């Protein structure tokens, strides 16, 4: 807290950057004012607040803060559009969709697979290996998790099997990109295809048309019921009944931060990703570090897949991850390869998924189908540089030749 306070003291509130950030906040505010519990019924309020946000953005833009300024302009425009559409629809429908505690709880549920994917990707990319195979690793974890759970009726075993399966997939990626020096994006794409084919094949072979058994939820990863929080009005709705894996994802974030940025091992990992030759010179084994990083990345991502199948939806379908791994990768880029900003990005994408999930309840399935595109659209806008370019680990994607 003191660190945040000192940092805030150092910020000049009239600096272009700060004004830009205020513009982004105003853009969000424009939308939020029209939602419950405030329910602004006139369209004037969101328009005025949004225009203020855009103005702040343009001001910041003209003073060379292009990223933040551009972000504020986009946020302002979106805030106006969404605010007007919210003000136009009926209060009943809005109340049906926007139940903040339920919406935020759903946000956490949708964000968790993204967190595991993104953190898996963080280890991999920090070591200098690009991982577009996160999607396939999630899917592998999802299938093998539910298969092992059905087999053993024990979710701990299921998670371990899922992690092992993800690690096997990641091992292929590691051998191909570290020793064989194949283009890492192509290898990653190949692993995505193989994961799709293998899980689909085994799913049909093992479960056929009946699908996965309906009693999986009895053996799935348990929810944690916190009685003392559940009685608190707002927080209870969010944190009262969350899956164990969601709490573990918080732990994973903290551990990842400590490991990567506060331990010598993390320093070695980062140095291998930034300048492998220098790391090699001081005696760090580049290959060994990369192998460990890639394989653990697969295991972590697969854990997210296992949460998806046996902690969240309690069933499996072919291609059930539907781009989750890629959104996780986008969150990692959006968060500039750092755990907590990445977590913020996953929450943003998770929120859009949660919103897309709840909107059909009030606006009908026809619009609901269209809203399914929302998380992808938001990801597209995010990577298109609302925050701007983010520079990744320098050696990312380049195989290392030992000398």
């Amino acid at each position, binding site marked *: 807290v003191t660190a945040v306070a000192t940092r805030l003291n150092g910020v000049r509130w009239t600096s272009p950057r700060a004004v830009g950030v205020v513009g982004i906040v105003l853009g969000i505010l424009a939308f939020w004012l029209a939602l419950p519990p405030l329910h602004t019924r006139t369209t004037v309020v969101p328009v005025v607040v949004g225009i203020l946000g855009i103005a702040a953005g343009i001001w910041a833009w003209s003073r060379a803060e292009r990223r933040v300024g551009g972000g504020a302009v986009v946020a302002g425009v979106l805030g106006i559009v969404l605010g007007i559409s919210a003000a136009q629809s009926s209060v009943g429908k809005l109340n049906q969709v926007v139940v903040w505690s339920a919406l935020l709880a759903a946000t956490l549920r949708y964000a968790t697979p993204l967190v595991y994917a993104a953190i898996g990707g963080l280890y991999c990319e920090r070591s200098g290996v690009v991982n577009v195979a996160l999607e396939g690793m999630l899917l592998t974890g999802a299938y093998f998790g539910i298969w092992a759970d059905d087999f053993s009726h024990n979710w701990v075993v299921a998670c371990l099997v899922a992690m092992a399966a993800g690690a096997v997939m990641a091992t292929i990626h590691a051998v191909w990109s570290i020793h064989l020096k194949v283009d890492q994006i192509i290898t990653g794409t190949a692993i995505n295809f193989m994961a799709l*084919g*293998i899980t689909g094949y085994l799913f049909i072979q093992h479960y056929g048309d009946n699908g996965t058994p309906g009693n999986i939820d009895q053996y799935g990863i348990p929810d944690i019921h916190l009685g003392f929080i559940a009685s608190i009005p707002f927080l209870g709705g969010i944190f009262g009944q969350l899956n164990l894996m969601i709490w573990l994802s918080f732990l994973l974030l903290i551990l990842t931060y400590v490991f990567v940025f506060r331990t010598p091992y993390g320093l070695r990992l980062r140095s291998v990703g930034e300048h492998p030759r220098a790391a090699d010179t001081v005696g760090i084994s580049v290959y060994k570090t990369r192998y460990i990083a890639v394989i653990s990345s697969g295991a972590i991502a697969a854990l997210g897949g296992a949460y998806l199948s046996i902690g969240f939806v309690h069933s499996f379908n072919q291609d059930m991850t539907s781009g989750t791994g890629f959104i996780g990768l986008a969150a990692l880029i959006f968060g500039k390869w750092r755990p907590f900003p990445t977590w913020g990005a996953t929450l943003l994408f998770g929120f859009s998924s949660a919103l897309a999930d709840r909107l059909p309840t009030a606006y009908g399935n026809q619009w609901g189908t269209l809203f399914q595109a929302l998380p992808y659209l938001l990801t597209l806008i995010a990577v298109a540089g609302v925050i701007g370019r983010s*520079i990744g680990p320098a050696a990312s*994607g380049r195989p290392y030749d030992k000398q």
Partner: protein
Amino acid sequence: VTDDSRDRRPEQGPPDAEQALQTGPDELRTEEAEEAPQPVVEGIPAVRSTLFERGRGIYAFVGPIGTTVIAFFMGGLVVLATGHNPLRVYRAIFDGTGLNWFFHVGSYSIRIPFSTHKVFFWWDTSSIAAQNLQQTLLLATPIILTGLAVAFAFRCGLFNIGGQGQYFVGAYVAIWIGTTMAHLQPFVHVLFALVAATLAGAAYAGLAGFLKATVGAHEVITTIMLNWIAIWVGSYLFGQQGPLQNSAQKAIPISNDVVEGAKLPVFWGLKLLQGLSIGIFIALAMLVVYWIIINRTTLGFEVRAVGFNPEAARASGISVARNYTLAMAIAGGFAALGGACDILGWEYRLGPGDIQASEIGFIGLAAALLGRNSPLGVGLGSLLFAGLINGTSDRQLDPTIFPPELAGNLTTIIQGLVVLFVGLNLGGLAMLLRRRRRRRPS
């Protein structure tokens, strides 16, 4: 114009870039080239467009054939491991492709187009195998075109995995124009639908290229996101109460049928039984167009220069941003044309179910990589995958030998294995090994 630009070319590109393209990267792959800073965009580097230029001569064929053999062998192991006989399965798949048509040579006749005359022909054009072959070629059409979408972007150093979404955009526009505007002349109608679909796909993919060029958003992520956006927008358009849902039966989520005048002519087989439309000729023509653009135009030269080394291209006055955008737009045009050919050639209607099930764009990716982005290679790779898909479809494959649902996933596994091993570049490997062997005695 072309003569002029060819004369001016050495001035535009410095001699070393020109030489690099002519002699191939093989000779230039020195330590300096490895160590030269590659522009890192968003932490994901550009694909190496020179990846497939390593095997030369006979070795150009070693890689793709070796890759195919390995992929099918490993796919066979999966089949074996799950208790089926891989040889019987592959035999059944092959019989379904219709490629066995070529083996039954005899004395038959064929009708000359636009007349009633019949002349001697070696093959029976109306046998079952011929019908199967029509299906395979029908499938090869969009695979070639989505394959070209991958190949063209690849030559510019871009990895376009959005062929699927671009294909959908083309299909949607083709449906929209094909089901409306019935007053147009048939020829004009078809042409308009094809051109509009191509332009729409070009705009859709060009967006990804533009974002890459301006803000550095990596194309792998943007094109995947555009794929999903296209899928859900399509599910909305043709779903229940969607704006393009059919006007007759509101309970069925499917579009109207394309009007007669907007359908591509079927030249082999019966229209009712999904005969082969002239779409295949469009696809083959595009293979030639691709070759011409890449090898015989200034644009192609610039695209290859950017793909080979963006920094060197920029230093020699080539606009990298412009080429990224253009290359993606042209790639998207190819893929969208594939979608339009499918709609106007045999599908004639589209529903959310078709959209969710389609994976043509990803098959095209595997075909293009297998074919090392060369026109001939893309064509042959597409034929291989079209045969595989047709042979494993539930219409062709006998379920007692191998369940078609499993076979569909087997196709995906083989596709993944192909992409995995194609990156290994077996042809280049074989060539290196031989060179090493030759050097050793001296």
